[in-house]
């Protein structure tokens, strides 16, 4: 296996008297799609925020393969700027013609070419998340961080978005970290599934990306068992 793009070693994070993370260890390899799953409050989003450098760990070390690695986050809520048109949201209203052209091409890629000059408020939930995905992809990131981006969508839109994201990440060989509490989503989309429980990673399993429903179901079932098991198993 090639050198990891990102390594987390003995990561800990404390907020006041609350220990949010302790002894988190895993690596992410180029082109890999990893899903972090676990119950709410388990520390998944904290891990993402540390990797995105929105916060610093209290202990441990996060090592990036390159110091200037481009990382982009797609948040649970779209965080689109309501005062910018959809195409401007992608380029952050850049006056650079190259960026504007890239934004228009990206709208085409994410299937929103017809909505270029409209505002995000006129888009559906799924369309807003596609636009947020497009914005994240505009910088050609080496690492894409997805923080439960599909949590607020209906089941049908969610499945469509899962397929869209998986295809884009696969086509662009994007290294991706998905945070989700949906074990089936994790099994369906990821190469590797890591279970986060009580602030640490307790279990790892191969994902079932591109495999049949039965295999996805088996992986999801096993992961769910680990999450729900009151006796936390040793790292698997």
């Amino acid at each position, binding site marked *: 296996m090639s050198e990891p793009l990102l390594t987390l070693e003995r990561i800990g994070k404390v907020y006041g008297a609350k220990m949010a993370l302790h002894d988190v260890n895993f690596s992410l390899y180029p082109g890999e799609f990893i899903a972090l799953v676990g119950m709410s409050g388990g520390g998944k989003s904290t891990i993402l925020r540390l990797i*995105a450098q*929105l916060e610093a760990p209290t202990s441990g070390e996060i090592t990036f393969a390159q110091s200037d690695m481009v990382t*982009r*986050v797609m*948040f649970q*809520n779209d*965080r689109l*700027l*309501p*005062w*910018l048109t959809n195409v401007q949201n992608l380029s*952050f*209203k850049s006056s650079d013609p190259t960026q504007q052209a890239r934004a228009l091409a990206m709208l085409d890629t994410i299937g929103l070419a017809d909505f270029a000059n409209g*505002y995000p*408020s*006129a888009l559906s939930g799924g369309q807003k998340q596609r636009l947020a995905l497009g*914005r994240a992809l505009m*910088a050609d990131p080496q690492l894409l961080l997805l923080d439960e981006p599909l949590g607020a969508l209906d089941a049908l839109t969610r499945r469509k978005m899962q397929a869209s994201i998986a295809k884009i990440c696969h086509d662009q060989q994007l290294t991706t970290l998905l945070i989700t509490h949906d074990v089936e989503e994790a099994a369906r989309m990821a190469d590797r599934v890591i279970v986060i429980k009580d602030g640490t990673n307790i279990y790892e399993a191969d994902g079932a990306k591109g495999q049949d429903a039965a295999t996805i179901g088996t992986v999801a079932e096993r992961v769910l068992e680990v999450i729900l098991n009151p006796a936390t198993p040793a790292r698997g």
Partner: protein
Amino acid sequence: MDNATNLTPPRQQPRIYQFKQLLPWLIPIALILLWQVAGSLNWLSTTLLPTPWSVFQDGVSLWRAGELPKNLGISLYRALMGFALGASIGFFFGMLNGLSKTARGLFDSTIQMLRNIPHLSLIPVVIILFGIGETAKISLVTVGVMFPIYINTFHGITSVDPELIEMGQAYGLSPKALLTKIVFPGALPTILVGVRYALGVMWTTLIVAETISSNSGIGYMATNAQEFMNMKTVLLCIVIYALLGKASDLIAKLLEAICLDWQVKRSR
């Protein structure tokens, strides 16, 4: 196409639209007509309350004599100068205190104390310091306008959704880009509420200042007319205030329509 359903054409909208456009003017027009009729039929004493038509004629003669344009021009100059100064100072401190916690600690308490002094109570102080010249009136308008702009700018900046700022930081925006692309546009709706309110304060302050300490301007015209029991000119000045207030409101709405077109489109 025998079975094709004949769809009734959509109802014509223009008439309803035109009626809605006229709706806000119905009450003012009805009141003026009623006032005219009451005056013409001597239900009201035209010495105490001249008819709208005679007020209009008085306006035309004052305009022709050059008195009305001169006083109107002076009042507009004072209002605009005072607004420009007050809005600039309020905006500067609103932005500064909204963006910097150190500046907030240093300035905000003092500004809040000063804000609670009714600015019209400063008139005696202003007259003693600056006399009854232009500086006195412009500085009063400046003080009146400054605080609503300050409060709304400060509140607008500090109320910008922190998640949007975090997104901007995560996407590598520079501090300048964060300010121009996220913080300022996010604060703009609240700032414009302040502008709208400040425009009202601007006229109120100027009218009072010109009434008390002036030898020119619309407020002076009204006071002077009152001394000669010239009710036509007093009423004319009141009508001019109303029209200037309405014009300010239209300007504020126009600003909102230009700067906040995304909100207008969303609410459709």
